[in-house]
């Protein structure tokens, strides 16, 4: 099974164009998941009982079904109910919704780890609930979460090939396209694997650095 360097070189631009879509999906999905996770965590903690109940149900549902199934559901089933996005939009929304259920747990642990005395000090100063959350509790809760976010970002990055299944031209989709057109599989899939490795591995090392810096002391 020969590896044709010249061919590999020639398909690299296509793969890198795909990598840009991968990056868009990853960062878009993560931004959505961080916001969604926070809202879910707050909804469960300070929302009225129906909201808290909805959040619990949502989190169980999302955590106990595969991402691929959620992706197909949102891409193929929701449009039947008149709710549709373009393919990339669907991918970002699905990644965001999926990961928000996991990040909600991360936020919850972070919030629970803030010592009770911080709430009491804020209350003794007559700070409002809102000011207490925004200025006192969340900044302390989120700091040790930064490396955890990093790990989820890498995890999400490695989940993006699933998006190829709903026609999103991200990096893996681009490789499939090339393979289908040329009947050459070695170069495109090897390159995709290498690119994932070249990004994920240094990122994982970076997260370890973050852990040292932001870890709870």
């Amino acid at each position: 099974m020969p590896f044709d360097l010249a061919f590999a070189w020639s398909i690299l631009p296509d793969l890198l164009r795909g990598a840009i879509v991968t990056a868009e999906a990853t960062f878009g999905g993560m931004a959505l998941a961080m916001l969604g996770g926070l809202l879910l965590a707050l909804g469960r903690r300070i929302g009225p009982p129906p909201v808290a109940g909805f959040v619990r149900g949502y989190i169980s549902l999302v955590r106990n079904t595969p991402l691929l199934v959620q992706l197909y559901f949102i891409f193929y089933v929701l449009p039947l109910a008149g709710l549709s996005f373009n393919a990339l939009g669907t991918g970002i929304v699905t990644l965001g919704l999926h990961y928000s259920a996991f990040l909600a747990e991360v936020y919850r642990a972070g919030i629970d780890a803030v010592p009770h005395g911080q709430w009491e000090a804020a209350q003794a100063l007559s700070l409002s609930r809102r000011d207490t959350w925004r200025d006192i509790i969340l900044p302390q809760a989120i700091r040790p979460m930064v490396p955890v976010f990093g790990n989820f970002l890498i995890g999400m990055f490695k989940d993006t090939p699933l998006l190829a299944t709903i026609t999103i031209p991200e990096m893996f989709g681009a490789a499939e396209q090339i393979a289908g057109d040329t009947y050459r599989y070695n170069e495109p899939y090897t390159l995709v694997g290498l690119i994932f490795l070249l990004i994920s591995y240094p990122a994982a090392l970076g997260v370890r650095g973050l852990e040292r810096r932001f870890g709870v002391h």
Partner: protein
Amino acid sequence: MSTEPLIRFRGLRKAFGANVVLEDFNMDIADGERIALIGPSGSGKTTVLRLLMGLDTFDGGEIEVGGVPLSRPSEQAKLARRQIGMVFQHFNLFPHMTVMANVTEAPRRVLGLSNAEAQARATGLLRMVGLEAKLNALPRQLSGGQQQRVAIARALAMRPRIMLFDEVTSALDPELVGEVLRVVRQLARESGMTMLIVTHEMSFARDVSDRVVFMERGRVAEQGPPDMIFRNPSNERTRAFLQAILER
């Protein structure tokens, strides 16, 4: 001294499950009075301060501040509590904020002071507690005694009429106790604020207060001017408690 007490505890009751911590607790505190609250561990001293501050709810009786009842949440009760400042045993500074930000946070957010106004106020208070050189430090860069002095400045920045101190030196290394007690003493002498001080430092209790209240099992067992309580307690329990403390 006006006839109407500033703070009034009447028939206060508090239980944690089956553990009745306060039972028919009564105490009146006049405006400007400085009370030292003493008593054995578990007698309910901290609980009295926490209920007054609103950190816990009580099960019966009433607390009034300036005539406003605190048993039910109301706008008036909120405003009454805004006149109360509290200093905790473990400081409870905001660890992610500088000293300056710790002291300016509540005046800016709650009182609506501008940045400049809040900083001017904070600078004055931090000078008073001897920490004007530490404005930009983070709490973890300070000694315990320095942190506690920041916590005092933080509470004072709200210009409270009433200050609560809960064993503010008991978490400190012995050599750092003096600097904190000095600040509290100075406040007691010069500020005219009403102060409720829980402490195990008997000589401090004696010279900082107008009245010593000895608590036992959730009630006031004996009270009076410091000289009387320390020189000639009438209650057998008070005597035994003071004896035990002095022998330590």
